[in-house]
C-alpha cells in the first residue's frame, strides 16, 4: 500500500545568481521542451530546481524555480552512501519522467544510525502548480524481507521505468522485487503490486501475503528499462538479464551470454534503439565490472575500447573499476556516466557504433570529464541525462558534486556550466573564495570579475603578509559580466609553493590585474598533511 504522507508546495525567490537549490546536483531529467529538472542536496538543504532555457547558443536561462526540502524534513532523494557504496546499483539516483506522476526519484529516511540509508518510497515531482513547484513524497509500506540477512539498502529503488501507454510506473527494488504502480485510474485509485522473479519458472509472480519464497529462486531486481515501441520490460537482476517474451506477458526470457552474471543495470534508448547493460560481480576476490551493448535487442557484446590509432584494448572497463551511474542517448551516440567508488575518477564514456571513442588524453583516453571540458572544475560527475532542447533537439545534462550541472546542446562537443554564483564586484573590487573554509585536501575557488580582458596574478599571503603561494602569474583572463575566474586554475588547495600544506589559519588572497586593479579575498584552512 502506498500512502500520501505529505504535500509541499514551496516556491522560493532566490537571490540573483542562484539557479539551483545547491551546486551538489545529483540527478537531472528533461521536464518538457527547454526545461531541465535538477535534484540537489547541499549541506543546508535539498530540493528541486526547474531551469528553463531559451533558444540560441550559448544556452541562456530564462527562468528558474525552486522547491526546497525543509531542514526538519527527515527524508531525501539521495542516500548517504551514494559516493562510497561498493554496489554499483546503489551509486545511482534514478530520475525519470513518469506521466501523471511528474518525475520520480527514490526516497530515503533516516536509519537507526542517523543516516539517510532507509528506503522509504519515492518522491513525485509534479511540476509547477499554483505558481510553485510541488512534490509529493509517496511512502512505501514496511518492506518485508525475503531474507533477514539483507540490509535495508538491499531494498533500495535503483531504477524506474514509466509505461506511458498504460500509465504504470515500474520500480526495481532489489531483494524486494519489482514494484508495479498503476495510476491509470487516477491518484485516488492507485493499483500497486509487488512482483518477484521466479527464476525456475521464468516468470513474474505477484507477491501475496504468506507466499513462500526461496532466495535462490528469486533474484534481486537491480535495474530495469522499458522498450516503448514494443512495451517490453527488461530486467537487470542478480542472476542474469531478463526480458519479457511477449507484451504484457508474465513470461520472461533469460538473455544468453549474461545468464549467470550479476547484472546491475540496463538502459535503453537512441535511434536505432540500443541497449546498454552492466555486470558487476566478485570473481577470484576482485570485483569484475563489464559494460555490454546490444544493437539488435538479442545479442550482447562487451563494449569495445580502442585507442586513438584504432587498436582494440582489452580489460579497460574492468581495469578502471568504473561503474555506470547513468546513460543518455543522443541519436546513434551513447553517453555513459561512470565513476569509481569514492569518485576519484569520473566522467563520460562516449560510444559510437564501434565502441568507446578515445580522445587525446594523457591518462584515461576514454573518459570525458574535466580535462575534456565537460565540467569546468575538477569535480565528480554524477550522472548524465538527455533532455529536450528548446528547438526540439536532444541536449545533454551532466550533474556534478559541487559544481552544479553542465549542459550541452551539440551532442557533447561543448559544455556550459550552470551553477549558483554569488555576485562579485567589478574590477576586483571584491574577491570571493568558494568555499572560504577548506579542510585537508580541500580547494577554494577564487572568484573575481574583470571588465576587460586582463593579465591576472593571484597570490596567497599568510596573516603576517608573507607570500606563501603564487597561483597564477600574468594569466590571461576574459572580461565577464559575472565572473572572469578560470575554474580550472584559479584555485587554492591550502599548500605553499613547495607543495607543503600550510598550517591552520587565515590566509589572504591577492588578485592583481595589469590595469592597476587589486582585490583581496580571505580563506581559512583547517590544515592538511
Amino acid at each position: 500500500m502506498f500512502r500520501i504522507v505529505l504535500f509541499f508546495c514551496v516556491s522560493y525567490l532566490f537571490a540573483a545568481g542562484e539557479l539551483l537549490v545547491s551546486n551538489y546536483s545529483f540527478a537531472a531529467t528533461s521536464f518538457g521542451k527547454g526545461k531541465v529538472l535538477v535534484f540537489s542536496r547541499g549541506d543546508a538543504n535539498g530540493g528541486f530546481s526547474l531551469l528553463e532555457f531559451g533558444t540560441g547558443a550559448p544556452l541562456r536561462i530564462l527562468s528558474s524555480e525552486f522547491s526546497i526540502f525543509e531542514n526538519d524534513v527527515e527524508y531525501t532523494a539521495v542516500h548517504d552512501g551514494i559516493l562510497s557504496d561498493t554496489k554499483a546499483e546503489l551509486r545511482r539516483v534514478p530520475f525519470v519522467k513518469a506521466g501523471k506522476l511528474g518525475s520520480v526519484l527514490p526516497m530515503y529516511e533516516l536509519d537507526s544510525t542517523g543516516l539517510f540509508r532507509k528506503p522509504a518510497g519515492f518522491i513525485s515531482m509534479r511540476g509547477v502548480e499554483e505558481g510553485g513547484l510541488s512534490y509529493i513524497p509517496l511512502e512505501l509500506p514496511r518492506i518485508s524481507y525475503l531474507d533477514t540477512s539483507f540490509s535495508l539498502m538491499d531494498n533500495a529503488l535503483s531504477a524506474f521505468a514509466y509505461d506511458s501507454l498504460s500509465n504504470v510506473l515500474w520500480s526495481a527494488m532489489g531483494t524486494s522485487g519489482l514494484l508495479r504502480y498503476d495510476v491509470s485510474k487516477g491518484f485516488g485509485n492507485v493499483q500497486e503490486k509487488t512482483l518477484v522473479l521466479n527464476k525456475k519458472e521464468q516468470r513474474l509472480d505477484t507477491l501475496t501475503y504468506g507466499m513462500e519464497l526461496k532466495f535462490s529462486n528469486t533474484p534481486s531486481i537491480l535495474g530495469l528499462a522499458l522498450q516503448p515501441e514494443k512495451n517490453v520490460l527488461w530486467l537487470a537482476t542478480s542472476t542474469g538479464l531478463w526480458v519479457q517474451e511477449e507484451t504484457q506477458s508474465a513470461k520472461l526470457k533469460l538473455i544468453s551470454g549474461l545468464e549467470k552474471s550479476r547484472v546491475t543495470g540496463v538502459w535503453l534508448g537512441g535511434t536505432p534503439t540500443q541497449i546498454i547493460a552492466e555486470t558487476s560481480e566478485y570473481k577470484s576476490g576482485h570485483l569484475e565490472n563489464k559494460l555490454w551493448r546490444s544493437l539488435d535487442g538479442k545479442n550482447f557484446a562487451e563494449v569495445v575500447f580502442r585507442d586513438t590509432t584504432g587498436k582494440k584494448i582489452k580489460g579497460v572497463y574492468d581495469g578502471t573499476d568504473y561503474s555506470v551511474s547513468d546513460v543518455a542517448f543522443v541519436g546513434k551516440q551513447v553517453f555513459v556516466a561512470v565513476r569509481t567508488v569514492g569518485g576519484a575518477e569520473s566522467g563520460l564514456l562516449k560510444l559510437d557504433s564501434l565502441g568507446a571513442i578515445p580522445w587525446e588524453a594523457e591518462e584515461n583516453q576514454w573518459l570525458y570529464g574535466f580535462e575534456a571540458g565537460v565540467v569546468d572544475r575538477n569535480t565528480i560527475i554524477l550522472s548524465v541525462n538527455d533532455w529536450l532542447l528548446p528547438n526540439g533537439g536532444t541536449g545533454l545534462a551532466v550533474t556534478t558534486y559541487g559544481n552544479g550541472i553542465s549542459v550541452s546542446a551539440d551532442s557533447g562537443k561543448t559544455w556550459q556550466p550552470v551553477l549558483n554564483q554569488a555576485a562579485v564586484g567589478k574590477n576586483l573590487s571584491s574577491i570571493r573564495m568558494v568555499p572560504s573554509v577548506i579542510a585537508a585536501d580541500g580547494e577554494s575557488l577564487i572568484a573575481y570579475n574583470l571588465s576587460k580582458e586582463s593579465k591576472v596574478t593571484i597570490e596567497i599571503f599568510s596573516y603576517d603578509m608573507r607570500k606563501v603561494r603564487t597561483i597564477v602569474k600574468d594569466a590571461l583572463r576574459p572580461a565577464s559580466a559575472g565572473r572572469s575566474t578560470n575554474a580550472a586554475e584559479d584555485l587554492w588547495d591550502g599548500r605553499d609553493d613547495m607543495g607543503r600544506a600550510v598550517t591552520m589559519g587565515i590566509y589572504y588572497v591577492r588578485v592583481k590585474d595589469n590595469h592597476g586593479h587589486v582585490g583581496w579575498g580571505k580563506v581559512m584552512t583547517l590544515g592538511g598533511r
Partner: protein
Amino acid sequence: MQKIILLVLLLLSFVQASKEARLGGFDGFVERMGASTRELGRGNTGSADTLAMPGAYWNPALLAFRKNIAYSLHAEKRDLDRAGGSLGIEGKIGSRMGIGAAVLYRGDWDFEVIDEDDKTLGNAAPFFSMMYLGFSYRLTRRDALGISLSMSYDNLGISKYYDDIDVEDGYRSPLTFNIGFIRQLNAKWSFSVVVRNLSFDENLTARWTKTTSGDNSLESTEGVRPKTLQVGLGYRSVLFGRSAALWLEALDYQLSEVFLAFDPDAHYWTARLGAEYEVIPKGMLRVGIDGENFTAGLGYAFDIRIGKKKWPFEVNYALVYESEADLWNPLSFALRGYIP
C-alpha cells in the same frame, strides 16, 4: 662604525637566503609579528634592549633589569580587518630576579564564511593568541639569563556555521619554552641571544596535533612552530647632543621537525634593523626594517605627578609598510609606564 656597517651588511645578506622555505605556512605568526609599538617602529627590534617590553616576549633575560613594576599595552589595526595587540606586566623579585607575563593577540574581525554552494553563512572573527610567563636572573650587573614559558590559543569562530560537522573552534598548543641571554658589553653596546619555541618533546620541537572535528569527520592536522634563534645587537650613542641608538637582530627559523637541521633549505633567515633618535627632548623618531617590511615610529615620554609621586609614561606610535603585499598600516599605538 666600520664594524657596524659590516655587521649590518652581513645581517641583511641573510634576508631571504633560502628560497625553498615558506615561513608564512608555519605556525607562529603572532610571535613573528612582534609586540608593542615602540619596538615595531624601529623594525621590531627589542631583544637586546633592556627597556623593551613586554620582556617576557622579547627576551626573558630583560626582566632582571626591571626596577619597578612596569606595564605595557599596545593595540593596532592593520589593513584587511586585521587587529592586534599585546599586554604585559613585569617587575623585580629581590635584587637579582625579575618576573613578567605577556599576552599577544592577533585576529580578523570580519571573515566571511562562504560554503561550497557559494552561499554566505555569516561572518566570523577568528583570533590567535600567545601567552608568556618569564623569569630572569641577573648573573652580574651587566648580564642576565632568562626563561619564559609560552603557549598559544587560537579560536577560529566558525563552528556555529556548520551544523552537520562537529568543527572544533579552539586550539591550544602544548607548553613551550624560550631561553634568553643579554649582556651589556659596555655603556654603548649590548648583545643578546634568544632561542624560541623549544618544547619538552624529545627533539625539542614544538609540534602538536590539532583535532579539527569532534566526530572525526575532518582530517586532523599538525601545528609546528619553528625553533628560532634570535641574535641581537644594540648600540647607543649621542649624536648632536641627543641620544641615538641602532638595533640589529638576526633570526634563523628552522623549518624542520628534527632537533637540529643543517640543510640550508630547512632554514629561513631574516634580519631586523632599527634606528632611533631623540628629535626633541624625550621625543623619539624611529625607523626600521623587519625582513621585507618597513616601519617608522614616534615616541614621547613624560611624567604625571599623582600625589607625591611622579608616574612615568610613554606613548608610542608606529606605521608599517608590508612591502610584499603592498599594504600600508598606519594605526599602531601603545602606552607603557612604571608604577613608582
